[in-house]
């Protein structure tokens, strides 16, 4: 890979934003499993695996499955964020593989969030 110029930086930013973008036609949902050391210790890898398993069966094109570092609330890991097109991202806490499968079925596929496992929706205060 050739060294980047500043223009390339802007192009990468644009391209990545587009590819991670959820939309009405493209992938409509983004699933983020929070996988810092704390999350993994609480079982986030198993949660990730169970999302992957379900995605093997259902249509993968509709969903972006990704991961990030710790979301902050370590006592309630594993945490998962689900963002559907046109809705604020929703944060789930204390997720098990079983709940993950349920989230896939109800929230991701049908658009019915599972309120009992949700802490909140929306964005953090990034200044």
């Amino acid at each position: 890979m050739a060294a980047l110029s500043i223009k390339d930086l802007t192009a990468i930013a644009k391209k990545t934003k587009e590819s991670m973008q959820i939309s009405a036609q493209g992938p409509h949902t983004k699933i983020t499993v929070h996988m810092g050391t704390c999350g993994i210790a609480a079982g986030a890898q198993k949660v990730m695996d169970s999302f992957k398993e379900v995605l093997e069966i259902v249509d993968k094109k509709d969903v972006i499955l990704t991961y990030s570092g710790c979301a902050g609330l370590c006592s309630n890991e594993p945490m998962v964020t689900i963002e559907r097109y046109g809705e604020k991202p929703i944060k789930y806490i204390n997720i098990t593989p079983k709940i993950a499968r349920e989230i896939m079925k109800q929230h991701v596929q049908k658009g019915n969030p599972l309120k009992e496992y949700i802490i909140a929706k929306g964005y953090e205060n990034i200044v």
Partner: protein
Amino acid sequence: MGDSTMSKETKKKEKTQTIPDLNSVPFFGRQILIALRNRGRINPESIDEYIAHDGYQALAKGLTKLKPTDIVEQIKQSSLRGRGGGGFDTGRKWASAAKATGEPKYVICNADEGDPGAYMDRSIIEADPHSVIEGMALCGRAIGSTVGYVYIRAEYPLARKILGHALEQARAYGLLGENILDSDFSFDIFIKQGAGAFVCGESSALRASIEGNVGEPTPKYDHATEKGLWKKPTVLNNVESFANVPPIILKGAQWFSAMGTEHSKGTKVFSLVGKIVNTGLIEVLMGTTLRDIIFEIGGGIPDGKAFKAVQTGGPSGGCIPESLLDMSVDFEELSKAGSMMGSGGMIVMDEDTCMVNVAKYFIEFCNSESCGKCISCRDGSEAMLEILTRISEGKGKEEDITLLEELSNAIKEASLCGLGTSLPNPVLSTLRYFKEEYQEHIVHKRCPAGVCKALITFTVLEKNCTKCGVCFKNCPYEAITWKKKEIAVINQNQCKKCGICYEVCKFKAIERK
């Protein structure tokens, strides 16, 4: 069917309506993210996603629109202070290294993080490694350095893997290496694995360890910014300090210095642990009160227990009592209270915590982590440990409190490095705020919190006992006598004070005193 008449939009609204907004949940709503700006929203192993969130834009600005002296000036004006412990003015450090002569110059990132209960730096690297890399590169540009090191704790395998991967990606994009972004600036970063001792996080010990020597502190005759690593000009900053740099350069010093208190600008990341409902990693504005952190963000103390103290600053810090909960959390106020900011560990303690025992724990930690070079730190902590042990065993003498104070002051005076000069803090602060508790141990041979085993007894409260026999069945030492329909009796000379009967009795019929 009624709901078939509802429009799709209203239906959708209904489904998410009752879910609270993140901002109305205090744990999230009270936080302001700068160092943790990308937590939970980018894949830490994708440099593209970092770039998509303004990543490397600050470096681009630093290489095209700003001169190296401008970068130093911006950091100076932001009043950013080091997040690794001492709170030293970052801009002054950079300015000194920029002015110093000697080639090559070094940028070191301190990711040793040895404080018990602290994991801020691990989390930053795991969530957003490029923010640290970009901050280091900007420092390199500012001081005229071409090489950096990240000194990372061996116990952090995931952080090291993620950082290593990030460095490779940055190199592949030419964001590290020769002529970064078509400029004349070249810079690369290498990982050095920590030697596993708490003291290796101290600046001179850390440099010795990178140089391949034993990671022990040395006397500071020179300024490290002039004669640091291999006697060359060196800037050493903490992970969180570096993570703050890109936003400051991108948004300007004023943007940053508008936040926080008079002498402590911006935010601070804390790991909130111990007896607290919401354990986690938080970032708050400097100046937030301890009460807000513990009771709003942290959700208070679990199981209906009362708050007793919060320990900040790690082994070098102190315990802050309830009467000071409304103090502002910043560098000055924490020092005034006899504690310190430290790197951001915050351990919350409830009514069941014995402050003598807490002091003993931290002295034990420092005693085993002392490099042993200077007598005051090595033998002084040993002597303190002896006294604290004796107090906790009910063998304390009246004069022990004065002795602890004198020893503390002597150790502060005479020790070589920060470990020694700060190790008495947990003792001094508990003596300052919880002296009665020491006296109870010494004079009345009582541990009010019911922690020090030598000083507590377990007895059956006859009026509460339902004669169920659960204590009898659970006692691993067969120290309880019980027969059906009879009140249980604890045989004191057989009791090992494990406390299991106390835990299993549902009727509060076991008294711990």
